């Protein structure tokens, strides 16, 4: 069992745009690594830095949003490569929850395996949240995965998250290995029944 992830509070980073792919979240050249430690420094590297390593003018570089734990973005977030390096890089930069209009499936799956809630919100809510944060970077959010509500001040917003991911997070079953190992006998039967590969 893992830590139960029920409530997340924090400030947010507004990252506008649709179809932000995992190559952009972590360029392939930073995947030459044997562990996922230390990937945070390379998150969105080419978005944040120019060719000579100089900082670009970008919301991800703005001191106003440094260290914020919630990332807000657009449609089809995390599309492209299946690299789990992407959510690890986000985790490494301090992101503990993502709010976007929708997600690529493998990415959503990878986030869940790491205990990062990937919440989907309707277009008007995404727009409103982005605007709120751009107007006031210090605005606080609180995410309640039991009540399925996002709070900020006296406002509440609904979000969607596939029920299986939500349960995995709130029940502390997001690291799936131990749950899967409970059925080793059934697995052995399937292994005997299903075709093998004979050289």
């Amino acid at each position, binding site marked *: 069992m893992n830590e139960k992830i029920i409530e997340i509070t924090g400030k947010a980073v507004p990252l506008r*745009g649709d*179809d932000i*792919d995992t*190559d*952009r979240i972590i*360029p*392939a*050249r930073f*995947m*030459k*690594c*044997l*562990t*996922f430690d230390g990937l945070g420094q390379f998150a969105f590297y*080419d978005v944040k830095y120019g*060719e000579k390593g100089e900082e670009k003018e970008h919301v991800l570089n703005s001191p106003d949003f440094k260290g914020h734990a919630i990332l807000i973005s657009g*449609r*089809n977030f995390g*599309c*492209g*490569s*299946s*690299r*789990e390096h992407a*959510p690890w890089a986000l985790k490494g930069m301090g992101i503990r929850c993502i709010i976007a209009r*929708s*997600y*690529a*499936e*493998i990415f959503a*799956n*990878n986030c869940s*395996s*790491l205990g990062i809630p990937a919440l989907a919100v309707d277009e008007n809510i995404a727009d409103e949240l982005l605007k709120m944060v751009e107007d006031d970077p210090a605005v606080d959010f609180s995410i309640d995965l039991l009540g399925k509500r996002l709070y900020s001040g006296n406002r509440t917003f609904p979000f969607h998250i*596939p*029920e*299986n*991911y939500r*349960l*995995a997070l709130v*029940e502390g*079953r997001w*690291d*799936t*290995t131990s*749950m*899967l*190992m409970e*059925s*080793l006998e*059934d*697995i052995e039967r*399937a*292994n005997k029944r*299903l*075709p*093998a*590969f*004979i*050289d």
Partner: protein
Amino acid sequence: MSQNLLNKVWDIHRIKTLPTGQDQLFISLHLIHEVTSPQAFGMLKERGLKVLYPERTFATVDHIIPTDKRERPFDDGLAEGMIRTLEENTGENGISYFGPESDHQGIVHIMGPELGLTQPGLTIACGDSHTSTHGAFGAIAFGIGTSQIRDILATQTMALSKPKVRRINIDGTLKKGVYGKDLILKIIADLGVNGGIGFAYEYGGEVIDNMSMEERMTICNMTIEGGARVGYVNPDEKTYEYLKGRRYAPKDFDAAVKEWKKLASPQDAEYDDVYTLDVSDLEPMITWGINPGQALGVGDRIPEDADEQACAFMGFERGQVLKGTQIDVAFIGSCTNGRISDLRIAAEVVRGRKVSPGVRALVVPGSRSVADQAEREGLHTIFKEAGFQWREPGCSMCLAMNPDKLIKRELCASSSNRNFIGRQGSPTGRTILMSPAMVAASAIIGRISDVRDML
């Protein structure tokens, strides 16, 4: 109404419903490579777990391997380290490994079918999103992250929700010079890069029926670019013909074929959605933007409502026709279009011609056996005489984790599958996706060209 292939294969492999509501699915075949697996073995070790059924996992090296010099140790210490780690992990755990010296080394999605590992009715997973390729054989195949690689190594199962199935009917006949690559780019452009989220795509119809296994692989390969994690074609005589006699194909082949035939979706199979496309008028497709859905016919104008950020990055304008635009690099290869039929088609275009001065042109065979076959047919000579570099097998400039990269703002005509910002190794480099025939034509002319003018 009867069950479609996906539902049947799912039921055969389903262990149970998990407390979270997902299914626990048995994975018949697990493929691994050097980039996404080391952390999974690390996690396993940390927990004191071992690989449950090593005979169901097969490994090769593709993403990071250099395609020019193959002497060990590789110049890039990090690449050497990652490949050595895979060698240790497979060695310690008794996993079959097709390394740099092997006759079967290659891009993992080319290796699987070649060895006959990819078979109808299997569930196949690999830590790589283009695992959908294997669906061309009527397998249910999908990309996974590293935590799931760990799950499969430890339990041969993973937690997954069953997708809905969208049947995609392709009617008509493809014109000369129009290929599977053009077709899948068209499907993605029509349905959108996120149109397939929550779906598996079942491809069928007369165009698919008439396609070779290799072209079907190209289509299934790029399914993930349309947001669908799984794409498949029902197995048929071509599938069985392709597999017969391959190294890991079932020994009692006729009995296996009998079982496979039962799995194909019948005429009256039920689907959650159906999409039909007539491709008789389809032109060779090229991308203009920064995702594979931003594609158009080679003679078409960039739409007037085209995404501004994409245009700005590419340096193109709305309304512009890209045909005639100068290119810097031409890349033929990748798991989308690095198979022998792709090289034959490209060589036919190139034969007796010269690459335009100033264009850096590479052919990277998808696997050692593709390279060997091409060399037996003399294709390498055709390419070399034209001025193409003939390389060793690997992913190469598809994702540029090895030394093959774009430089600065270079514009690349590429037979690969992703035109994302930075994908080909330079943060400002630009990619135009197209068929290998179109890349060959563009390399010769030095500009984005319509291959039909050269056939």
